[in-house]
């Protein structure tokens, strides 16, 4: 074998033993089970390790690819998170999609709904998450086969997706934080949101004025990390 072939062969081993780790079923973890105990333990380590380092574009990586894989991750997190508090977010309790008294969102997707409509938060979030899901499932926007290039407008669609996902965090923080506390998942929400913010800030993906409803929290989360990792 020539040198290159030997190295190529070795390179394939750098990747082995990983493929079985990419997916772990987590659908049903019965209360009181061994796994549940493990979960409780793991809670203490949540947030250990500097997520800010991990958001940077790895050397040699395509920016679109990196934004795509992270966007899918954030969507999954927000989808699950909202799923845990959905029962508290009802059309009567959350008549409008708001993030505190100062911010109210009206839904329009620019295609089927052009004129923004005022609707309840659960309805808005349903529209929003369905719209995002639709983008993620669209092979022309998020190609999933190796070798298929991204479309030219990928970045602008990704920015819209992230801007809209931010609003779900904003609604949850402003209107449902006590529900989140009741479920004991505030550390998890904070970690998810902090990672999201590091990511969008690293690549300038959301306008600063869009972040205003949670600016104070953002400053707090980030300054705490600066203390920790200085």
């Amino acid at each position, binding site marked *: 074998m020539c*040198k*290159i072939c*030997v*190295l*190529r062969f070795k*390179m394939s081993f*750098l*990747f082995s033993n*990983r493929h079985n*780790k990419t*997916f*772990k*079923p*987590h*659908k*049903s*973890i019965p*209360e009181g089970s061994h796994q549940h105990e493990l*979960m409780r333990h*793991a*809670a203490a*380590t*949540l*947030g250990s*390790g*500097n*997520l800010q*380092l*991990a958001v940077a574009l790895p050397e*040699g*990586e*395509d920016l679109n*690819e*990196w934004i*795509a*894989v992270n966007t899918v991750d954030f969507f*999954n*997190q927000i*989808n*699950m998170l909202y*799923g*845990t508090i*959905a029962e508290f977010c009802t059309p009567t309790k959350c008549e409008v999609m708001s993030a505190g008294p100062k911010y109210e969102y009206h839904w329009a*997707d620019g*295609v*089927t709904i052009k004129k923004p409509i005022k609707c309840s938060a*659960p309805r808005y979030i*349903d*529209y929003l998450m*369905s719209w995002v899901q*639709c983008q993620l499932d669209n092979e022309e926007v*998020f*190609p*999933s*086969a*190796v070798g298929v290039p991204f479309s030219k407008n990928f970045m602008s669609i990704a920015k819209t997706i992230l801007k809209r996902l931010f609003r779900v965090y904003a609604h949850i923080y402003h209107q449902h934080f006590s529900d989140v506390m009741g479920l*004991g*998942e505030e550390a*998890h929400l904070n*970690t998810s949101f902090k990672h999201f913010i590091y990511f969008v800030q690293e690549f300038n993906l959301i306008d600063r004025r869009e972040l205003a409803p949670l600016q104070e929290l953002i400053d707090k989360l980030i300054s705490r990390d600066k203390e920790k990792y200085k």
Partner: protein
Amino acid sequence: NPRTRRMKKYSPEAFKFYMEQHVENVIKGYKARTSRRWQLEQEMNKFSLNDASKSEMRKMLFQKESNYIRLKRAKIDLSMFDMI
């Protein structure tokens, strides 16, 4: 009206477990990727490759890394995992 899907409910335990695993995997993934990059340099030095071959090998690694994160995004049919 656009297509909507009623938001699925999730148990807080599932979400918490998912997040705990996820954060760990993000950090682990970052370290593993950095270490693969470093390992390649070590190996290339051992074999004393010339610069052109080195840059060729780096490109190859970058491509593999990129394909790997694309496959992570590939739609997984959840029902496939119920048997495990």
